[in-house]
């Protein structure tokens, strides 16, 4: 049985670190894991995705249309952009966070209204305010690890030794902060 997790957001939001921690944990738990990311030009404020797949034996590193068990979006509009990759039986965790793209900043388009409500009408949706919680923890940058916490809880992966994974993969001075962020994220789902 292969499970697929789709993490999406905007270049610079830290999806890459979140997926790195996630895949490392899955590997150490004994799963076969594959993960796909596209780097390059999209990093400059573009739409980004990390596709994580795990199970006994994983063939493709990419998630197909209608293939994700969970869609975790670091930004509201990105959840809408990637929704077709979710299984009809899948669920969404969405960060209540808005990043205006250049056409919106330039006044050519309006940021779409009511995304969170429409998502909730279509699929089981958990809305989290990771920015608020990250700021309360003292560093807006840990939004990504809070969202990682929501994935772990949503996918029932709590038994993996996340503390060790985090200590092994982040700078010692940020370890405690990230552990707190992970706990906050897990409590939100």
């Amino acid at each position, binding site marked *: 049985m292969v499970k697929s997790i789709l993490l999406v957001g*905007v*270049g610079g939001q830290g999806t890459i670190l979140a997926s790195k921690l996630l*895949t*490392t944990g899955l*590997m150490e738990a004994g799963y*076969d*894991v*594959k*993960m*796909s*990311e*596209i*780097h*390059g*030009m*999209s*990093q*400059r*404020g*573009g*739409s980004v995705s990390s596709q994580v797949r795990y199970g006994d034996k*994983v*063939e*493709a*590193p*990419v998630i*197909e*249309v*209608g*293939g994700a068990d969970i869609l975790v979006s670091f930004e509201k*509009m*990105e959840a*809408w*952009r990637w*929704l*077709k*990759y*979710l*299984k*009809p039986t899948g669920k969404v965790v969405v960060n209540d966070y808005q990043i*205006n*793209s*250049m*056409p*919106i*900043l*330039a*006044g*050519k*388009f309006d*940021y*779409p209204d009511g*995304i969170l409500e*429409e998502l909730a009408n*279509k*699929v089981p949706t958990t809305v989290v305010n990771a920015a608020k919680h990250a700021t309360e923890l003292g560093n807006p940058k840990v939004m990504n690890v809070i969202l990682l916490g929501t994935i772990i809880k949503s996918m029932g992966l709590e038994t993996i030794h996340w503390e060790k994974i985090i200590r092994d993969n982040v700078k010692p001075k940020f370890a405690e902060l990230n552990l707190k962020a992970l706990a906050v994220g897990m409590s939100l789902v």
Partner: protein
Amino acid sequence: MKKLLTGNEAIARGAYEAGVKFASAYPGTPSTEILENIATYKEDILAEWAPNEKVALEAVIGASIAGARAMASMKHVGVNVAADPLFTYAYTGVNGGMVLVTADEPGQHSSQNEQDNRNYAKFAKIAMLEPADSQEAKDMIKTAFTISEGFDTPVLVRMTTRVCHSKGIVECKDREEVGIKEYVKNVRKYVTVPANARVLRVKVEERLKKLQEFSNTTELNYIEWNSTKIGVIASGGCCNYAREVFGDSASYLKLGFTHPLPTEKIKEFCHKVEKVYVIEENDPYIEEQVRLLGFACSGKDLFPFCGELTPDVIRKAVYGKENPSIDYDADKVVPRPPTFCAGCPHRGFFYTLGKRKNILVSGDIGCYTLGFAEPYNAMDYNICMGASISAGHGAQQIFSMQKDSPMRVVAVLGDSTFFHTGVTSLLDVTYNQSNTITVILDNRITGMTGHQENPGSGYTLQGKETIQVDIEKLVRACGINQIRVINPNDLKAVEEALDWALSLNEPSVIITRWPCVLKKFSPQDKEEFKGSFTQRCAVDPEVCVGCRMCLKTGCPAVSFDKTGKKANIGLDCVGCEVCLQVCPKNAIHKEEA
């Protein structure tokens, strides 16, 4: 030991385990991290950024001739630049093993084309391997060196973006120290004057025959028998995609060694299955061989020529539809194109340039290519690395032929692109004297690929301090007498420099010198650009009249509050002051961040 590695990290690990002594590359997505990861094996491998791919491959060829195992890596279009030495080294053969990794881009995520570099193996008549995932990437690099030395051939290893940038679990082993082979002068083998090259030419054909035999016997090409109703022939990542779609309902001929193709294995497979699908991204490279052998198959008649053949694409092609998904109105989503970062030194320059009339802006490859887009609209074309200056020269010569034409050419390229192939292009301008204006956007680093050192940055890939090539002196040495160095964040300086250059009737160069906002500053940078990026700009809402002039700078830190009708500057501002200079009401001021 098991590790979770990207394909690129796995290639680097393979090079380490294979006993590689020397590696060289020029950065380019999706290949960049290969050499960056090789560079971490500092004790064992000398890893160098070269100014361009041709130079990288030539350095690797020299290392191979001198007896070391050596590897070059580059993006697909980089192989075009490096094709000249490749085709000759294909004739001479190697001393120490030589492997060239090409990172192709089905889907064109970060590239100007989608060329299928498997054609290069056929064209140059050399061996080729195609890994499907990270484990294979590591293993095949080691096999590639054995093949290179065993068959006296350069070996092409063809990766694709998904294999480069996907992670998988890799069993890592120790380094095999193969040493450096003795160098023995051998002019008949290595001096390719026609008399020798004609002899080598025959050997190349003999080598191909031996490689053909190898292709038919090697376990790199294998059959997985399941149901014989459907037979899938695939190489690289496509085989994994196909398994997602067909599972056990198909048998697979999985090809890892793809030049020359295993004709006997293909025959054996096609005879036993009822329906053959050839699933490959880009060109019908395998399909043509299958058809040549006389077998009917479904290939490019069914699967797209363009883009990636991910499982949903295969599913749609074979069964007419994708998996069920949620029905919703995707049109609500606003595009999110890449943009210049807040504080990017290209912003001030392109903002100013875009307002000029009767200018053809000859573009190049880098972050600054985004200057073509809204709100700057300051680029007419871009062709390939270095072409801004030379194509600009050609265009200027035609404009200058027409007495009434007011058109002037401004060629724009970055520091790393200038070192890559811009220098020779500038020689064309000075030698043939067109009044082309060349602008070198010197942001002190190779930007778009993620901050690689270059000949102007003062450091090598493995962190040694080195000569910092002075762009101004280099430009002067190329024969340019009219040079200005400016700060591109100073809009008045940009205007004046453009006025000055446009007034000249001879070639000129403007160098904009300001670091990439994401660059990790070197000690020299800290001194030269002291205090930069430490302040921010803010809008005084009492003074702001909501004219939106500041929004025309296209800065992601600047937004507009529609209810209050005021501009707002976000915390990602680093104080470049471009918006401050554009504001007609002086409503923007500087403050400590």
